[in-house]
């Protein structure tokens, strides 16, 4: 159901909701950027709609709400272990259409790919998602190429226009709370075209895995992992077992984000690493995003948010890499004919 209401009314509703939910949205963190006097836009708790950064794309995605960068899973002593408590409150997350599609990728990995991940599930089950519209495409977005520019798989859509707030609710709590508000049809803002367009090759022949094409990335990539950490669909983690220093027999297990670009990702017991070459790491990531995942789960992993292109300190463009790969696939197909 669609409603028109006021910011004041909506803030009051969120204030009530905050008794049971932590409300997360993209926020401006002034001066928190990599360089002096540069802000970061990333997820944080809000108490008022005015804190939400609607005008710009967030540098980091919402994924840290459901998959914390560092999450204690359980505590152990000599003979026993205890799972870490789940947060007492649920969560409400403001996010854009591409990210809502990203949520599906996370669900696939953590809920539908073999055993259900209980740590993910217990956060996920208590989270509500509120869509933020996109009036214009941002720099580097290619959601239209990935088919993620629209989504109605939300608990609510919300648009702030001065003092007016438009809501499309799929959530009975909001319908009740907005009883008496003007009912109106609310259609989420979405884009129909992006400046960046990518064409993904249907299949990439095995012969291109060692193509010289990847070597250039080996010289350019510095293995910082930023492209993975900002990506809403990168879901890799690794484990850290910590023994408390005052009592070496008790400790905790944490899981933390991992990145296939960063050193250590393919380290084995004994110290051998499988992918030392950064060009091959690029190949692995690109193939995971726009080839391997689809072969297994039916959709591409990448949702076209373009954050990897926004963030890369070496100006490596993932979108351009896909297009170059596509040209290469077409060329090699011609050669075979």
């Amino acid at each position: 159901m669609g409603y028109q209401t006021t910011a004041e009314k909506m803030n009051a509703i969120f204030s009530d909701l905050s008794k049971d939910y932590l409300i997360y949205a993209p926020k401006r963190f002034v001066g928190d950027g990599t360089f002096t006097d540069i802000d970061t836009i990333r997820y944080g708790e809000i108490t008022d709609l005015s804190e939400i950064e609607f005008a710009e794309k967030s540098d980091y995605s919402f994924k840290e709400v459901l998959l914390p960068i560092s999450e204690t899973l359980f505590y152990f002593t000599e003979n026993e272990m205890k799972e870490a408590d789940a947060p007492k409150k649920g969560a409400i997350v403001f996010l854009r259409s591409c990210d809502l599609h990203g949520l599906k990728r996370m669900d696939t990995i953590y809920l539908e790919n073999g055993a259900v991940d209980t740590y993910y599930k217990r956060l996920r089950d208590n989270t509500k998602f509120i869509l933020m519209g996109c009036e214009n495409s941002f720099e580097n977005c290619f959601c239209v190429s990935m088919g993620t520019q629209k989504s109605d798989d939300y608990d609510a859509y919300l648009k702030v226009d001065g003092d007016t707030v438009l809501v499309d609710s799929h959530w009975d709590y909001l319908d009740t709370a907005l009883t008496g508000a003007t009912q109106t049809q609310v259609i989420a803002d979405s884009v129909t075209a992006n400046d960046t367009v990518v064409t993904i090759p249907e299949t990439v022949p095995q012969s291109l895995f060692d193509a010289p094409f990847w070597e250039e990335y080996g010289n350019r990539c510095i293995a910082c992992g930023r492209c993975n950490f900002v990506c809403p669909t990168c879901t890799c983690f690794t484990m850290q077992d910590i023994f408390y220093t005052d009592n070496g027999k008790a400790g905790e297990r944490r899981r933390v984000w991992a990145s296939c670009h960063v050193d250590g990702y393919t380290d084995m017991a004994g110290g051998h690493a499988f992918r030392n070459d950064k060009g091959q790491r690029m190949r692995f990531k690109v193939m995971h995003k726009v080839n391997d995942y689809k072969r297994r789960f039916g959709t591409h992993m990448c949702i076209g948010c373009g954050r990897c292109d926004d963030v890369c300190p070496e100006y490596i463009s993932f979108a351009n890499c896909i297009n170059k790969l596509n040209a290469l696939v077409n060329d090699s197909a011609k050669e075979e004919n």
Partner: protein
Amino acid sequence: MLDLNTKKIKKNAYRVTKVRGETASRVRVPGGLLTAELLPLIQNIAETYGNGRIHLTTRQGFEIPGIKYTDMDAVNALLQPIIEKLNINQEIPGKGYTSAGTRNVSACIGSNTCPFATYNTTNFAKKMEQEIFPNDLHFKVAFTGCANDCIKTRMHDFGIIGMTEPQYEKERCMGCQACVKACKKKSVDALSVENYRIVRNTEKCVGCGECVINCPTRAWTRSPETYYRLVIMGRTGKRNPRLAEDFLVWATEDAIIKIVKNTYGFVNNYIDREAPGGKEHIGYIIDRTGFAEYKKWAMEGVELDPRTIVKGPVYWSGIHYD
């Protein structure tokens, strides 16, 4: 027949050159940043009254050579819009620069452009220029954005090196160690890992911000306040060239401005009036009076942040030719 008061000429930022009858005008550019619109004005002076050439000085000014002493008033008139645009304190409008002792306050490019910078060096340099110019005493002050010290503050009477106090949010750290590697390879190896988390050796850390720059998840961020390392009494020259030594570490802007201003009082009190041209350089004055006496004058009324470390006694080394 020329009849000149060379002392007045020098005070007016003109040089007594080796070429009989010709002087050179020095244009100061505090912080080393100017808008391009001023370049044609400087070009015009060089082409109208100079020999068409411009020398870029080591202190980030312009020196326009080949000017006739008789044209100084005309040149001063042409300097006026430059002086105004660069917001230089001026005692008598239209008469050019009224002092030359306190040199142009220079700065590296800083946070306007450089990714390593911890603060806006140009803005602080301009602020300092406002506080100390014009003055006949020979002071050299330079600002640099980070511990790389591109402007070479350590060869100045006062060098101000930016510092940030890295803030660690452990919940945003996944232990990639990019910060540890950067600090070890590019800075002072102040970071170590304990239970997969990062420990910063606060005594070693120089506040360069490499950890902040290299952290991919914003676990490291900059402190809201900028801090500075104040290094003092570096110099070049004939007798005892030497690098400046640390005086204050983790100091604030206000403390630094106050100390530099206090130093003018110290020099006025102790300068050797019999020295050639009445000029004696601060560093040599401190060598005479001893550091303790200087510190007493310098710290008069200075309010320190609790973080600030004050060094003392300070010893300089360098090369002694005397």
